[in-house]
């Protein structure tokens, strides 16, 4: 049984209220930070903990906080990125729905550490219930004196505001989020300058994921060094994984980083195996934008070792045989799923969500979607497969924000690992409309000799 830090009290009735949350040890971190620590101490603890951003990129949170510019007389902001819209990821929504006070407490600690007196939670527009839950939680915290002027007599003032987004995936990109928060069209900004120098309203700003902010609470409570003992290597602590797809028990699980992928999929504590007794075909390990891996590569590394749920182990092997932990959207596909259709579906999403600011992404995402649609519906040509690879290469790395990469990777990786299936769709268009390609050899043990 792995340690639970964020979801420890998830099953306590009424944990969404201030009263119960406080009884279960909530808001200890605020009291500890505000009464006994300086803001630099908090940053130092987060640095020691080795906490890495939970939103997808995995950038060390403490490092991000210490990069924040601190010019005199200019306000600083902490912005919580709750615009969770990656297909396959739903951990932040779960956290905000059930323990909103964990986020509010984290926001207070984080804002104190950064010296921010106004903080924002930018919530995806579609999450209306969560917006109401958060506003209620803020009101409760304020009534109890944990927000507002002179919190707990420490002389520190803080206001937290909830801002609903307009419902665009691109607003999850930090600079687009800031543009949107300022009331403009959500186009990503060109970096540099980075938000740590000029972010919201041109002031130094830190944008953190919901889970990263919530994770600062146990770090302050137990100390950064204690937190760093959990996990493996540079992947410290616990991570929320949104497990979905063809598994027996879909849902949000808190795991200690370093758990093996096989255990995560097959143990009863987590996913509980593949549903209906089917066999595993492929896994998208970190939300739709990370490369998809076939069964044999997701369970084992190219050298035959077990693959673990950690930032390093999942990306072991680079793009050739690895993927990424990303935001923790763990999508499992069984032998009856069609990879071409899945890739087309992802591609359709990115086509719809591209902001249209820079040309390769604006035009390329639509192009890929149309070609994939053609292959899926039996009108594909052999040359289409190489065309897709070429278009994805032209997009990747040539755009302002990472959405271009996110659109290119699923397509490129699906073709890299499942080329047989794409070719089968082209060669047997009629058959492809009637049935699926099946598992084929995607679960066969990897020939390790090849790697030598």
């Amino acid at each position, binding site marked *: 049984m792995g340690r639970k830090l964020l979801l420890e009290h998830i099953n306590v009735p009424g944990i969404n209220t201030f009263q119960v949350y406080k009884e279960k040890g909530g808001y200890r971190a605020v009291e500890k930070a505000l009464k006994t620590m300086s803001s630099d101490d908090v940053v130092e603890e987060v640095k020691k903990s080795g906490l890495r951003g939970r939103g997808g990129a995995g950038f060390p949170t403490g490092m991000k906080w210490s990069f924040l510019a601190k010019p005199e007389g200019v306000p600083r902001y902490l912005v919580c990125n709750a615009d969770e819209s990656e297909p396959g990821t739903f951990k932040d929504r779960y956290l905000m729905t059930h323990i909103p006070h964990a986020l509010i407490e984290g926001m207070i600690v984080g804002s104190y550490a950064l010296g921010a007196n106004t903080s924002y939670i930018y919530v995806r527009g579609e999450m209306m219930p969560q917006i109401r839950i958060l506003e209620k939680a803020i009101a409760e915290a304020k009534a109890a004196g944990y927000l507002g002027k002179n919190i707990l007599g420490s002389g520190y003032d803080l206001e937290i505001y909830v801002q609903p987004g307009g419902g*665009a995936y*691109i607003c999850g990109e930090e600079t687009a989020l800031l543009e949107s928060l300022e009331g403009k*069209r959500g186009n990503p900004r*060109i970096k540099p300058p980075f938000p740590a120098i000029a972010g919201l309203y041109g002031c130094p700003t830190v944008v953190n994921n919901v889970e990263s902010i919530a994770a600062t609470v146990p770090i302050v409570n137990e100390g950064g060094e204690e937190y760093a003992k959990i996990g493996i290597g540079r992947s410290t602590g616990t991570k929320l994984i949104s497990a979905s797809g063809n598994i027996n028990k879909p849902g949000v699980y808190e795991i200690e980083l370093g758990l093996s992928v096989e255990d995560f999929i097959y143990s009863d504590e987590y996913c509980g195996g593949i549903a209906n007794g089917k066999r595993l075909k492929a896994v998208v390990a970190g939300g739709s934008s990370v490369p998809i891996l076939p069964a044999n590569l997701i369970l084992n590394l190219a050298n035959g070792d077990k693959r673990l749920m950690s930032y390093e182990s999942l990306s072991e092997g680079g793009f050739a045989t690895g993927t990424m932990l990303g935001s923790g959207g763990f999508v499992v596909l069984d032998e009856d799923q069609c990879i071409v259709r899945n890739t087309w579906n992802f591609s359709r999403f990115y*086509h*719809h*969500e*591209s*902001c*249209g*600011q*820079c*040309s*390769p992404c*604006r*035009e*390329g*995402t*639509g*192009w890929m979607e*149309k070609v994939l649609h053609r292959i899926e519906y039996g009108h594909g040509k052999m040359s289409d497969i190489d*065309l897709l690879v070429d278009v994805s*290469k*032209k997009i990747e*790395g*040539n*755009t*302002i924000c990472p959405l271009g990469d996110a659109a290119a990777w699923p397509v490129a990786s699906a073709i890299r690992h499942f080329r047989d299936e794409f070719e089968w769709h082209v060669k047997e268009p009629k058959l492809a409309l009637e049935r699926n390609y099946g598992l084929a050899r995607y679960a066969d043990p990897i020939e390790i000799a090849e790697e030598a």
Partner: protein
Amino acid sequence: MSDKIKVTIDGIPVEVEPGTSILNAARQIGGDIVPPAMCYYSKLEGSGGKCRTCLVKVSKGSEKDPRPMPKLVASCRTTVMDGMEVQNITSPEVIEARKGVVEMLLINHPLDCPICDQAGECHLQDLSYEHGAATTRYEFDRRTFDRVDIGDKIQLHMNRCILCYRCVFTADQITNNRVHGVLGRGDHAEISTYIEKAIDNDFSGNVIDVCPVGALTDKTFRFKNRVWFTKPVEAHRDCPTCSGKVTLWYKGEEVLRVTARKDVYGEVEEFICNTCRFDKKSTNDWVIEGPRQVSRQSVINANHYDTLQPLPVIKKNPELMQANKEQFERATKF
């Protein structure tokens, strides 16, 4: 010690002011090593970074931190560092990426150059001539929009638009109220006035000049003539609202259109007002200064007053040279 910083572009060193972008440093050198720019416009603050045609490779970050940059960067929005080394046309990677960008820009472009008023002075046309392939790999219907008249003088042909945002920045920065913008997302995003509101402002006509393609065209010049058959002449008038310095485009005695004066990169020297642009179309309104040199390497300068120099390659061919000379004399006789 001078506070200028040294940067090397394609092996050519240049000293520039701190804070200069790579693109502007390249423009100080000039010639073939200048990256093309479809969306950057030096007179418009915040423009650039969007079209990705100006991508270059930074092979050495700076003297202090010589690591190369991991990705290709947009030269229009990347400032130079001391000792930076940049590769533009000497990097196959850059050429490949630029070819990709041009291909992307063209997949939804109607390629209706034969009936487009911008033909001849279109940046996309020049760029596709230089980098594009003769055929397309895109086998689907192109996105289409209806033509829209925004005001009585400007027509918006959204099919041709490459969403460079220049006209949006122009309206923001030159005029006092912007009534058009970008609506929608992705490849279905469009420039629009929201509810077909007319753009009605003294300086609105400048959006025509900044448009790199034929998406925003002058209705008073629409289908009047091909730009390469008209002759540019510099002229000025005493205008109460703008500088009054313009280029008149003549066909015979008639002034077919009036534009601002554009430099070698297609950027205007000074923005002009709508009265000068649309209403003063008679030689009597203007003080003529002389023929306008069009330094852009494009079909636009093919038929102009004194740019018809015999090409060096023709010097080896005395017959062609003679023919060329005769034609030049014929052309300049009037």
